[in-house]
């Protein structure tokens, strides 16, 4: 980098998108749309043992207008579907969605008159976390995958 040497290391050159996305990646503001038992795992995830704040996503906002990561945690019924859609629409761009648990991904073991068969019938989903409920490690993995998606880099195996 000739220019950086010319300026004697007083500046760092980078692409604007990469800098902005680097900032977004480490400052996710989750909104917990918690409807069912998976919320217990969310509490464990946010607690000191698993500690999602290590990934910059510790500040849970209880208003969708202040959040950019929607975590749908639990079963969504038909009666609740329009509420979820409205919450999603209230969030500012850019926004991401994690389907947390089997019910949010696909309806889980519910196949009845009341349950929505996966939230992707209502809103777009970025990362699916299977499990009933998923262990906190799964969700940490999902957040890391989302971070890779935000920066546009493929997750390295």
């Amino acid at each position: 980098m000739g220019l950086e040497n010319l300026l004697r290391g007083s500046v760092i050159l980078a692409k604007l998108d990469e800098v902005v996305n680097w900032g977004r990646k480490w400052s996710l503001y989750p909104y917990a749309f918690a409807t069912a038992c998976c919320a217990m795992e969310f509490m464990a995830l946010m607690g000191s043992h698993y500690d999602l704040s290590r990934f910059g996503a510790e500040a849970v906002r209880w208003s969708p207008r202040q959040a950019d990561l929607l975590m749908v945690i639990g079963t969504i019924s038909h009666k609740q579907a329009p509420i979820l859609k409205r919450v999603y629409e209230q969030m500012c761009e850019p926004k991401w969605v994690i389907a947390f648990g089997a019910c949010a991904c696909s309806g889980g073991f519910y196949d009845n008159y009341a349950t929505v068969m996966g939230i992707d019938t209502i809103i777009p989903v970025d990362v699916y976390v299977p499990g009933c409920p998923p262990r906190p490690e799964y969700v940490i993995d999902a957040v890391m995958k989302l971070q890779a998606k935000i920066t546009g880099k493929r997750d390295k195996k």
Partner: protein
Amino acid sequence: MNEKEFPVVKLKEKFTDEIIGEDYFRGDTTVIVKKERIKEILSFLKNDEQLRFNFLMDLTCVDYLGKKSERFEVVYHLYSLGNNWRIRIKVPVSEEDPTVDSVTDIWIGANWFEREVYDMFGIFFKGHPDLRRILLYPEFEGHPLRKDYPVKKRQPLVGPSDWKE
């Protein structure tokens, strides 16, 4: 005569023609009655000095599709707080005329029970002050706890009507 039979005997004295059957299974007293005078029967059970079945514990319904001549049975579970007695009243209801008199005048708590039975089974309660769906949304088609409701039936994705723009 013991406490299990005593309420039945009293009912038989007063409502001879209304009683269809009685049953004592594992200590539970069940009386099957006709639906025409159900309000009078329940009111008598509640207000009689000796019986005092003053607590409506549960009001629900059973669908006996293809098993009984009258398809539905509305079930009332009563409890006497003073006597520590329980009794179950069953009312057969036909599919052609799925109506029963509402008991909200006798127990105000029957309001939501009857709405739930209407929601899930499509039984109409005559005289109910506000017979709307309680758990499902107004656009829902059918009554899901009926035995002929298709298991795999998918409802269109709508929600409560007041959420629509």
